């Protein structure tokens, strides 16, 4: 039984359909990230699951229960917001216990839960302070604490780290991951536009674009076998390199041809039956390019070298394409040098030029 099941859901905003028949199943204990650029509908989906938005059609199940018509407080969920949304005139303790008070939980039970959550998040010393006396990171911990005390089965996070600076973001990211591990059975649905958060936190990532799901898969799958051009482009930093070309059949099988360059594709795993003569795009990640001797694609000239410490990113180009290559930081490279690139066909991704789908 899935922890959260979205079945054929459509949401409408003032006569505009935001989704149409979207379906998604999330298993218990999973950490699922909804990833995509702004406007892709990920927050809308989250709000619909929470019950803050009505669905125009379809159903939502949480823990096997049909909650499509239930109020948010009856769905067994807890939520953490980007702007923390802490009750401004109450102190931390009151913030964390307000929901429980509304549910008429007993005083000792409230105390117990508040202390537990505060301990887990290391905010016990802040219990008597008010939100305006806390830093951004502390406020977000309190917001998470408020969600924790609800003892919910499903936790929803709406871009909780976007308001924090980079250092805090990294800290809290690890804390959230630790929290998920400690809470065992808790299912977490997390919305973000940051692919690093998605890759590091998720058991599965749901990549969305323009209110449609592009791909669902583990971080490794999404990274290694992106199902379309958009996903390939969105994930990975530095970005995947794209080279336009064609498929040609020669004696041994299919080949990728782009200008003077050829790459035999006999070892490539096709998901779809390709056809010769098809226009395609070859995608290869900067770290999957070889720059040693014997590279099958010579003639690239190095334009810019970006030393990043552990790695170095090389920008090189020929008349047609510009390629980024990631290599070890120890190598000595100078701009103007000539480079031959080697590509392993099992590491590339091929996409149909028109549809963008993976071949």
């Amino acid at each position, binding site marked *: 039984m899935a922890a959260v099941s979205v079945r054929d859901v459509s949401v409408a905003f003032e006569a505009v359909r935001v989704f149409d028949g979207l379906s998604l199943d999330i298993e218990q204990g999973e950490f699922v990230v909804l990833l995509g650029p702004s406007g892709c509908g990920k927050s809308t989906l989250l*709000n619909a699951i*929470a*019950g*803050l938005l009505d669905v125009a059609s379809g159903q939502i199940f949480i823990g096997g229960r049909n909650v499509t018509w239930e*109020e*948010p*407080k*009856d769905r067994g*969920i*807890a*939520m953490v*917001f*980007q*702007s*923390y*949304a*802490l*009750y*401004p*005139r109450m102190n931390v303790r009151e913030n964390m216990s*307000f*929901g429980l008070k*509304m*549910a008429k939980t007993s005083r000792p039970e409230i105390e117990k839960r508040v202390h537990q959550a505060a301990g887990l998040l290391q905010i016990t010393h802040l219990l008597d302070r008010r939100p305006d006396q806390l830093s951004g990171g502390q406020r977000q911990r309190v917001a998470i604490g*408020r969600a924790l005390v*609800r003892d919910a089965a499903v936790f929803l996070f709406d871009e909780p780290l976007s308001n924090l600076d980079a250092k805090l973001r990294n800290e809290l990211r690890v804390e959230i991951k630790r929290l998920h591990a400690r809470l065992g059975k808790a299912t977490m649905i997390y919305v973000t536009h940051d692919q690093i958060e998605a890759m590091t936190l998720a058991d599965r990532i749901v990549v969305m674009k323009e209110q449609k799901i592009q791909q669902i898969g583990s971080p490794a799958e999404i990274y290694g076998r992106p199902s379309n051009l958009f996903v390939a482009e969105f994930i990975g930093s530095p970005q995947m390199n794209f080279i336009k070309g064609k498929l040609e059949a020669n004696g041994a099988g299919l080949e990728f041809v782009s200008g003077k360059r050829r790459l035999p594709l006999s070892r490539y795993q096709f998901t779809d039956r390709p056809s010769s003569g098809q226009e395609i795009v070859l995608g290869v990640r900067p770290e999957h390019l070889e720059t040693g001797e014997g590279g099958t694609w010579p003639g690239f000239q190095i334009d810019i070298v970006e030393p990043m410490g552990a790695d170095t990113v090389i920008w090189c180009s020929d008349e047609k394409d510009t390629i980024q290559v990631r290599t070890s930081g120890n190598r000595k490279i100078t701009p103007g040098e000539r480079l031959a690139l080697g590509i392993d066909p099992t590491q590339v991704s091929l996409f149909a030029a028109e549809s963008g789908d993976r071949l």
Partner: protein
Amino acid sequence: MDTVSVPAPGFGAAISPRRRRMKTRLPAAVALFPTALIVLVVYVGCMLWTVRLSFTSSTLLPKLDWIGLAQYNRLFVNDRFVTSAENIVVFGALFIAGCLILGFLLAVFIDQNVRGEGVLRTVFLYPYAMSFIVTGVAWQWFLNPGLGLQKLVRDVGFDTFTFDWIVSQEMAIYTIVIAGIWHGAGLTMAILLAGLRGVDEDLWKAARIDGVPTWRYYLSVVLPLLRPMVVTATVLLATGVAKLYDLVVAMTLGGPGIATEVPAKFVMDHLFERNNIALGTAAATIMLITVLAVLAPWVYAKYVRPQGRRA
């Protein structure tokens, strides 16, 4: 704010920086001069002169003698003045409370995604655009026992219905309160609604997830956030209370008898009709002191006390 002083071409180092600064600021000072003059002559000078006159025995024309606090003594045994003081306190309390409560309720209810929000807002706010004379005339008309509400209800069948507050000694002041609230609640609503719109949207979402009922949300979460707006509205309303004059003149002319006398009217009557300048200015001085006494704590709280956190 820094002003950048750039020397004109060809300007040598003949003038010291300080004098140069003063020279560039001269037009600004000149531009402010008329206002400075007005502030000095009117806002300070006339006020002081009024106070000075209250210590005299002027009747029709000002006479600069000195009789100490005699006029004030007369004031406190003057029926009209005492009644006006009582009236203004009653009116002030009820008017401010009424406007705040009604304004708050209207703002909150409109904030609930109701249909026709724009129309409703227009309807609630238009009275503020009306002159107090128009307001007073219309309400006096409506509350007139022989022609207005009482007659209407009686015509419908309730023969014994009486609503003759406006001609009753004890109740007349409350008719002024009603008209006042009618005039000012819309403004209060507009101010509070602006405050409501500034509340973080996610707060409402968090409250829904916490299962907080709507009324509790507004009372415990939103209202504390609205405090600055409430203060602003209260200050505005209070200003109107002190100045209450037009409405009374139009509605009841201070009557029946002196039942709806207010200090402003007392002053005006004595200055211009009853030819008793000294008594009038004495009453005006009392008004002044009261206003200053009420203002001082607010000014203190707003401008003097906040340490560090300057708005």
